[in-house]
Protein backbone atom coordinates (compact mmCIF):
# COMPACT_ATOMS: atom_id res chain seq x y z
CA UNK A 1 0.00 0.00 0.00
CA UNK A 2 1.01 3.59 -0.48
CA UNK A 3 -0.29 7.16 -0.19
CA UNK A 4 -0.02 9.59 -3.09
CA UNK A 5 0.57 13.28 -2.38
CA UNK A 6 1.43 15.73 -5.17
CA UNK A 7 2.65 12.92 -7.40
CA UNK A 8 4.89 11.51 -4.68
CA UNK A 9 4.33 8.06 -3.28
CA UNK A 10 4.66 7.15 0.42
CA UNK A 11 4.75 3.46 1.39
CA UNK A 12 2.48 2.23 4.14
CA UNK A 13 1.82 -1.16 5.68
CA UNK A 14 -1.36 -3.13 5.03
CA UNK A 15 -3.19 -1.23 7.75
CA UNK A 16 -2.17 2.18 6.48
CA UNK A 17 0.65 3.00 8.88
CA UNK A 18 3.46 4.95 7.27
CA UNK A 19 6.63 2.88 6.76
CA UNK A 20 9.16 5.73 6.87
CA UNK A 21 8.58 8.01 9.85
CA UNK A 22 10.88 10.68 8.40
CA UNK A 23 8.92 11.02 5.14
CA UNK A 24 5.84 12.38 6.97
CA UNK A 25 4.48 15.83 6.18
CA UNK A 26 1.29 17.75 6.96
CA UNK A 27 -0.30 17.19 3.59
CA UNK A 28 0.22 13.47 4.00
CA UNK A 29 -1.33 13.67 7.48
CA UNK A 30 -4.40 15.33 6.00
CA UNK A 31 -4.70 12.53 3.46
CA UNK A 32 -4.39 9.80 6.06
CA UNK A 33 -6.97 11.62 8.20
CA UNK A 34 -9.34 11.74 5.26
CA UNK A 35 -9.05 7.96 4.89
CA UNK A 36 -9.93 7.74 8.57
CA UNK A 37 -12.91 10.06 7.99
CA UNK A 38 -11.44 12.70 10.25
CA UNK A 39 -11.41 16.40 9.44
CA UNK A 40 -8.26 17.84 10.93
CA UNK A 41 -8.89 20.79 13.28
CA UNK A 42 -6.48 22.72 15.47
CA UNK A 43 -7.32 20.33 18.32
CA UNK A 44 -6.43 17.33 16.18
CA UNK A 45 -3.15 18.91 15.18
CA UNK A 46 -2.29 19.56 18.78
CA UNK A 47 -2.57 15.87 19.61
CA UNK A 48 -0.78 14.76 16.44
CA UNK A 49 2.10 17.18 17.01
CA UNK A 50 2.37 16.13 20.63
CA UNK A 51 2.61 12.48 19.53
CA UNK A 52 5.37 13.25 17.04
CA UNK A 53 7.39 15.29 19.51
CA UNK A 54 7.00 12.59 22.14
CA UNK A 55 8.02 9.85 19.72
CA UNK A 56 11.08 11.80 18.60
CA UNK A 57 12.17 12.27 22.17
CA UNK A 58 11.39 8.81 23.62
CA UNK A 59 11.26 6.51 20.57
CA UNK A 60 7.84 5.11 21.46
CA UNK A 61 4.27 6.42 21.43
CA UNK A 62 2.97 7.54 24.81
CA UNK A 63 0.47 5.58 26.85
CA UNK A 64 -3.01 7.08 26.53
CA UNK A 65 -2.77 8.09 30.18
CA UNK A 66 0.36 10.15 29.42
CA UNK A 67 -1.26 11.70 26.37
CA UNK A 68 -4.33 12.73 28.34
CA UNK A 69 -2.24 14.18 31.13
CA UNK A 70 -0.22 16.23 28.65
CA UNK A 71 -3.36 17.53 26.93
CA UNK A 72 -4.80 18.44 30.31
CA UNK A 73 -1.71 20.50 31.10
CA UNK A 74 -1.81 22.25 27.73
CA UNK A 75 -5.51 22.74 27.05
CA UNK A 76 -7.19 22.58 30.42
CA UNK A 77 -8.98 20.03 32.55
CA UNK A 78 -12.14 19.88 30.40
CA UNK A 79 -10.09 18.58 27.48
CA UNK A 80 -7.86 16.24 29.45
CA UNK A 81 -10.15 13.25 29.37
CA UNK A 82 -10.73 9.98 27.59
CA UNK A 83 -14.02 11.35 26.32
CA UNK A 84 -12.35 14.34 24.64
CA UNK A 85 -9.80 12.06 22.96
CA UNK A 86 -12.53 9.82 21.59
CA UNK A 87 -14.46 12.82 20.30
CA UNK A 88 -11.40 13.77 18.27
CA UNK A 89 -10.47 10.22 17.29
CA UNK A 90 -13.60 8.05 17.47
CA UNK A 91 -11.77 4.81 16.71
CA UNK A 92 -9.20 5.41 19.43
CA UNK A 93 -6.39 7.90 19.92
CA UNK A 94 -3.76 5.14 19.82
CA UNK A 95 -4.75 3.76 16.46
CA UNK A 96 -5.97 6.82 14.61
CA UNK A 97 -3.83 9.63 15.96
CA UNK A 98 -0.63 7.58 15.63
CA UNK A 99 -1.52 6.68 12.07
CA UNK A 100 -2.12 10.31 11.15
CA UNK A 101 1.10 11.30 12.93
CA UNK A 102 3.00 8.82 10.75
CA UNK A 103 4.05 6.68 13.72
CA UNK A 104 4.18 2.88 13.75
CA UNK A 105 1.14 0.98 14.98
CA UNK A 106 1.27 0.94 18.78
CA UNK A 107 2.08 -2.52 20.08
CA UNK A 108 0.71 -4.03 23.24
CA UNK A 109 -0.01 -1.80 26.16
CA UNK A 110 2.70 0.81 25.73
Amino acid sequence: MAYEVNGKSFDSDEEGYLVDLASWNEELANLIAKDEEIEMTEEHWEVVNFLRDYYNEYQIAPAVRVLIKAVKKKLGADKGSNKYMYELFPYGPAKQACKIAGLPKPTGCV
Partner: protein
Amino acid sequence: MSDEIEFNTAGVTKKFMYVNRKAPYGTIYALEVLEAVLISAAFEQHACIVFVDDGVYQIKKGQDTDAVNMKNFSKTYGIIAMEKEDADEDDDIDMVWRIIVEQESMEARGLRADDFVIDVEVIPSDKLAVIMSEQEIVISG
Protein backbone atom coordinates in the same frame (compact mmCIF):
# COMPACT_ATOMS: atom_id res chain seq x y z
CA MET B 1 -0.91 2.09 24.15
CA SER B 2 -4.30 0.61 24.97
CA ASP B 3 -7.41 2.51 24.01
CA GLU B 4 -10.56 1.04 25.33
CA ILE B 5 -9.89 -0.54 28.66
CA GLU B 6 -9.61 1.21 31.98
CA PHE B 7 -8.76 -0.97 34.92
CA ASN B 8 -9.66 -0.06 38.43
CA THR B 9 -6.53 -0.83 40.37
CA ALA B 10 -7.28 1.51 43.26
CA GLY B 11 -5.85 0.15 46.47
CA VAL B 12 -3.86 -2.58 44.76
CA THR B 13 -0.36 -1.18 44.88
CA LYS B 14 2.54 -3.56 45.09
CA LYS B 15 6.27 -3.15 45.31
CA PHE B 16 7.82 -4.12 41.99
CA MET B 17 11.49 -4.40 41.27
CA TYR B 18 12.91 -4.63 37.76
CA VAL B 19 16.43 -6.04 37.60
CA ASN B 20 18.32 -5.22 34.41
CA ARG B 21 21.47 -7.30 33.99
CA LYS B 22 22.16 -7.43 30.24
CA ALA B 23 23.71 -4.93 27.87
CA PRO B 24 21.27 -3.53 25.29
CA TYR B 25 20.93 -4.67 21.63
CA GLY B 26 22.76 -8.04 21.89
CA THR B 27 19.68 -9.73 23.34
CA ILE B 28 16.02 -8.82 23.78
CA TYR B 29 16.15 -8.86 27.62
CA ALA B 30 16.66 -5.13 28.13
CA LEU B 31 13.81 -4.09 25.87
CA GLU B 32 11.43 -6.65 27.38
CA VAL B 33 12.09 -5.43 30.92
CA LEU B 34 11.70 -1.81 29.81
CA GLU B 35 8.28 -2.59 28.34
CA ALA B 36 7.24 -4.22 31.60
CA VAL B 37 8.34 -1.10 33.51
CA LEU B 38 6.20 1.10 31.30
CA ILE B 39 3.18 -1.11 31.91
CA SER B 40 3.86 -0.85 35.62
CA ALA B 41 3.62 2.93 35.30
CA ALA B 42 0.22 2.65 33.66
CA PHE B 43 -1.05 0.76 36.69
CA GLU B 44 0.54 3.18 39.19
CA GLN B 45 2.61 0.61 41.02
CA HIS B 46 5.67 1.19 43.18
CA ALA B 47 8.78 0.44 41.19
CA CYS B 48 12.50 0.09 41.76
CA ILE B 49 14.31 -0.03 38.46
CA VAL B 50 17.72 -1.50 39.07
CA PHE B 51 20.75 -1.75 36.79
CA VAL B 52 23.25 -4.45 37.70
CA ASP B 53 26.14 -6.15 35.84
CA ASP B 54 26.09 -5.31 32.10
CA GLY B 55 22.61 -3.82 32.60
CA VAL B 56 24.35 -0.55 33.48
CA TYR B 57 25.19 -0.17 29.78
CA GLN B 58 21.49 0.15 28.98
CA ILE B 59 21.50 3.73 30.25
CA LYS B 60 24.98 4.74 29.08
CA LYS B 61 25.02 8.17 27.43
CA GLY B 62 25.87 8.66 23.77
CA GLN B 63 24.23 5.59 22.20
CA ASP B 64 23.89 5.85 18.42
CA THR B 65 22.18 2.86 16.81
CA ASP B 66 21.71 4.23 13.29
CA ALA B 67 24.45 2.08 11.79
CA VAL B 68 23.14 -1.15 13.34
CA ASN B 69 19.62 -0.32 12.21
CA MET B 70 17.98 -0.71 15.62
CA LYS B 71 15.90 1.66 17.69
CA ASN B 72 17.93 3.61 20.25
CA PHE B 73 15.80 2.81 23.26
CA SER B 74 18.14 4.47 25.73
CA LYS B 75 15.97 7.50 24.96
CA THR B 76 12.90 5.65 26.21
CA TYR B 77 14.32 5.56 29.75
CA GLY B 78 13.50 9.28 29.81
CA ILE B 79 9.90 8.20 30.34
CA ILE B 80 10.95 6.39 33.50
CA ALA B 81 12.64 9.54 34.77
CA MET B 82 9.48 11.48 33.97
CA GLU B 83 7.24 8.96 35.72
CA LYS B 84 9.49 9.17 38.76
CA GLU B 85 9.21 12.96 38.75
CA ASP B 86 5.42 12.75 38.50
CA ALA B 87 5.27 10.24 41.30
CA ASP B 88 7.50 12.42 43.48
CA GLU B 89 5.55 15.61 42.83
CA ASP B 90 1.94 14.48 42.81
CA ASP B 91 0.59 13.78 46.29
CA ASP B 92 -2.52 12.16 44.78
CA ILE B 93 -0.45 9.41 43.24
CA ASP B 94 0.57 6.79 45.76
CA MET B 95 3.53 5.61 43.80
CA VAL B 96 7.19 5.53 44.79
CA TRP B 97 9.77 5.11 42.04
CA ARG B 98 13.49 4.63 42.43
CA ILE B 99 16.15 4.28 39.76
CA ILE B 100 19.19 2.48 41.12
CA VAL B 101 22.60 1.53 39.78
CA GLU B 102 24.66 -0.97 41.74
CA GLN B 103 27.93 0.70 42.64
CA GLU B 104 30.12 -2.41 42.19
CA SER B 105 28.82 -3.10 38.68
CA MET B 106 29.26 0.53 37.67
CA GLU B 107 32.81 0.78 38.99
CA ALA B 108 33.84 -2.60 37.55
CA ARG B 109 32.99 -1.17 34.11
CA GLY B 110 34.82 2.10 34.59
CA LEU B 111 31.58 4.12 34.63
CA ARG B 112 30.46 7.00 36.83
CA ALA B 113 27.05 8.33 37.87
CA ASP B 114 27.23 11.13 35.29
CA ASP B 115 27.72 8.64 32.44
CA PHE B 116 24.00 7.82 32.46
CA VAL B 117 21.12 9.29 30.45
CA ILE B 118 18.96 9.62 33.59
CA ASP B 119 19.61 10.55 37.21
CA VAL B 120 20.26 7.46 39.29
CA GLU B 121 20.94 6.51 42.89
CA VAL B 122 24.25 4.67 43.15
CA ILE B 123 23.94 2.06 45.89
CA PRO B 124 26.43 -0.57 47.08
CA SER B 125 25.48 -4.24 46.81
CA ASP B 126 24.90 -4.92 50.52
CA LYS B 127 22.32 -2.12 50.73
CA LEU B 128 20.76 -3.07 47.40
CA ALA B 129 20.41 -6.67 48.63
CA VAL B 130 18.27 -5.40 51.52
CA ILE B 131 16.09 -3.31 49.18
CA MET B 132 15.66 -6.33 46.92
CA SER B 133 14.62 -8.54 49.82
CA GLU B 134 11.77 -6.13 50.62
CA GLN B 135 10.10 -6.41 47.20
CA GLU B 136 6.83 -8.20 46.49
CA ILE B 137 7.39 -8.90 42.81
CA VAL B 138 10.73 -9.05 41.02
CA ILE B 139 11.00 -9.11 37.24
CA SER B 140 14.45 -9.70 35.89
CA GLY B 141 16.26 -9.90 32.64
